[in-house]
């Protein structure tokens, strides 16, 4: 969410509707932190975050006349961002397989420790843990991946996810449940592969 409370969003939107290019530029500057965070969280492989952000902003300007004000403007923009990310993730078609042999030595150690030890993963291994989590999430359907990403990594509530994505809360819960079951299956497969 953009932090700048002094920004006159309503005035800026009025000027953008009157085709004021300076106001459009200000609006992009203001919304960039929000959009780039969504892009980074749900970035498909082989897509640059800046290209994705640009596509989202262009969609926003194309549809700006359709914004009725029924939801906060930032929520409306994040829904465009989420939909665009999902479209890109869907376009990848194949979701990569994840095998124990594909993991780096450190990643395998971190995963092994997470599975076997009751203790938390060491803070020194945070980067490897993040990489592992992303590799596991890449195997999920784009919508399921997005829900888990928001719930577990960004610790957002179901209500917040509903506002950001436009999906109703029941759908968010169903997707989370389904995604967790799939993640557990991937986990089991990985562990069985390691033990065999």
């Amino acid at each position, binding site marked *: 969410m953009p932090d700048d409370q002094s920004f006159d969003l309503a005035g800026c939107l009025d000027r953008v509707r009157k085709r004021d290019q300076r106001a459009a530029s200000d609006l992009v500057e203001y919304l960039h932190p929000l959009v780039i965070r969504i892009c980074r969280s749900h970035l498909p492989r082989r897509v640059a975050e800046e290209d994705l952000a640009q596509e989202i*902003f262009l969609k926003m300007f194309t549809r700006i006349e359709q914004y009725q004000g029924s939801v906060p403007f930032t929520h409306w923009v994040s829904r465009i961002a989420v939909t665009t990310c999902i479209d890109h993730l869907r376009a990848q078609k194949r979701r990569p397989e994840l095998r124990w042999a594909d993991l780096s030595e450190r990643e395998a150690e971190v995963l092994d420790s997470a599975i076997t030890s009751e203790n938390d993963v060491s*803070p020194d291994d945070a980067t490897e843990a*993040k990489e592992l*989590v992303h590799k596991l999430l890449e195997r999920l359907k784009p919508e399921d991946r997005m829900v888990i990403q928001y719930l*577990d*990594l960004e610790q957002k509530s179901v209500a917040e996810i509903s506002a950001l994505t436009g999906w109703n809360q029941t759908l968010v819960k169903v997707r989370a449940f389904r995604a967790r079951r799939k993640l*557990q299956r991937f986990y089991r497969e990985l562990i069985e592969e390691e033990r065999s």
Partner: protein
Amino acid sequence: MNDHEKAWQRLVKAARRAPGPTDDAAPFGFATRVAALAFESQRPPVSAFARLSLRAALVACLLALAAVGVNYSAIRAAFADDAAPAGIDDPVEEVVTIAS
């Protein structure tokens, strides 16, 4: 919570601690470029007069073609008359004919 779920929670807890990119501000020139692109792709629509003019020109072309089609035989006959032997109206030939 089963063992797999606990392991997943330990992993995501560690993943949350991983450092990410800290700079969320737009790169230099990004906002200006995007704003320019946005307005370039949303050119104002063609004016009503221009649209009507184009339609009028199209209709005029179709009417001209239809007129040629309907009057084809008359046009062809006119060309055929023009191509008829010019001798009849030739005064020299007329004088020679009378003299002979």
